[in-house]
């Protein structure tokens, strides 16, 4: 493979600058000592990070996002595992249609899902509730959980299970001692990817969250709609720091490329 020339490297530098600039700028402004938006040059201050603690809406929204992400991702994984086993191991009428249905939240714009959930939850009396948020988030993160559980279910060596059965293990023991431990890495990364997607979701959630059930991105979005001040940059800087930390861990543990490119049945 040939090397990149100086022109290619110059282009690459510009491109990386473009990708990182808005993220770095947010973190930079967050350290301003001033009461207004400015780029600190010689004076740095943590005052806007301390200020987050005095704004309980952000703090409670953060914890809510954390719980919502953890819970909905766990349920999405739990629902995905049997479905992934069915899709990976059986050939049955409706298999393709079912897979398409489970992957459809990736295809349907979140703005449409948000509207549909708002109408639906208002009608059945779950409007603005945490239960509604969990149900909606399970559905939108399920494709990510399913994609990774499916990849590990397809990659599973059935000979190990057959060996266990021939040694006298019952079906339940095979599932608990052989199948689940083998697909566990896939489940863990599926949960992690689902969690990040739930934690970042704003477009759909903005429709179904009420003032008492706002998630962190929704609170940030609504705050920015009114005004942009250093407080929202310090909150964003914290979110960025948490995401980057999770990203590095996931990259070390599983490989970001594999996580994002995936290897589902339909190649998505």
């Amino acid at each position, binding site marked *: 493979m040939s090397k990149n020339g100086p022109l290619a490297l110059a282009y690459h530098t510009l491109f990386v600058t473009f990708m990182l600039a808005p993220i770095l700028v947010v973190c930079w402004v967050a350290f301003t000592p001033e009461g207004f938006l400015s780029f600190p040059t010689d004076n740095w201050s943590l005052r806007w990070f301390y200020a987050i603690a005095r704004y309980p809406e952000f703090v409670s929204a953060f914890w809510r996002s954390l719980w919502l992400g953890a819970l909905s991702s766990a349920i999405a994984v739990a629902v995905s595992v049997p479905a992934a086993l069915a899709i990976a191991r059986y050939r049955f009428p409706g298999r393709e249609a*079912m897979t398409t249905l489970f992957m459809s939240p990736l295809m349907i714009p979140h703005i449409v899902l948000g509207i549909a959930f708002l*109408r639906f939850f208002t009608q059945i009396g779950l409007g603005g509730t945490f239960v509604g948020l969990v149900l909606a988030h399970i559905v939108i993160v399920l494709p990510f959980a399913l994609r990774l559980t499916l990849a590990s279910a397809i990659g599973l060596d059935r000979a190990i299970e057959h060996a266990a059965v021939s040694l006298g293990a019952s079906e339940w023991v095979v599932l608990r001692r052989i199948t689940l431990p083998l697909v566990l890495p896939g489940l863990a990364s599926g949960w992690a990817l689902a969690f990040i997607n739930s934690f970042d979701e704003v*477009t759909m959630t903005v429709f179904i969250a009420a003032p008492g059930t706002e998630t962190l991105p929704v609170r940030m979005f609504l705050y920015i709609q009114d005004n942009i001040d250093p407080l929202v940059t310090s909150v964003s800087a914290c979110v960025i720091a948490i*995401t980057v930390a999770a*990203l590095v861990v996931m990259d070390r543990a599983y490989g970001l490329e594999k996580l994002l490119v995936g290897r589902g049945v339909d190649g998505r």
Partner: protein
Amino acid sequence: MGAVAVRAAPYLLSLPALLLFAGVVVAPLVMTVLLSFHDWGQYKGIEPVFILKNWKEVLTDSYFHEMFWRTFRIAFFVTLLAALFGAPEAYILNRMRSPWRGLFLLVILGPLLISVVARTLGWALLFGGNSGLVNKALMSAGLISAPLPFMFTETGVVVALAHVLMPYMVLAVWAALQRLDPQIENAAVALGAGPFTVLRRIVLPQVMPGILSGAIIVFALAASAFATPAIIGGRRLKVASTLAYDEFLNTLNWPLGAAVAVLLLVALVAIVVGASRLVERRYAQVFG
């Protein structure tokens, strides 16, 4: 296990997911389509009747025409920028050596997982008025003589959205490049082809399916994007998603908002399915 049990097994295994999707995806979507045919009035609220009023308004009113035209124009330019800049970067990335390759892949794909609100906030800060950093950089580079307006303009929305969706394009082209056989490139060089001929005649035709599938993803996501156009475009520069949001949470005319959303969904599904078919048919002949 009996034969019936074996035949029922996959359905039983998928039952939880199927029930969930029937209840929480299919039912709400059907209800939204029905909602778009309901009537609405300032004082009477939503009336569950079956009329075509909202659809007539959305399909004939020039305000909606302009708004949908703007939505798809923005999506088109975002796709164009992503393809133009993302595809070469994926190629450069693919030619890098081991530690750099992984590192920069992480740097470029990583933003995909960072909150879109935080990324858009970054662009709002960079654009910020006439003294924004982007204008300062462009002016000191001699590219422009007077500050360009980015905030609350289509240009600003396009640039920010191109940034937000760029990783999808790089990812799609990257995936296509992984399937490329480097021996073909080497063969072309051995036969005397220059670097540009290799790019144009060997690499580009082979990664074209990747660029096109990336373009379809980016277009669909750009046309339905919400947070970025809402923050950068502000309240006046309306696209389909921000208009639907307004109808639902400010005007409270839910049936009209539902009609806008359903129309956006139908248009996008038609465009995505149509484009995918075209790409598949075009490249089925090439790759068999």
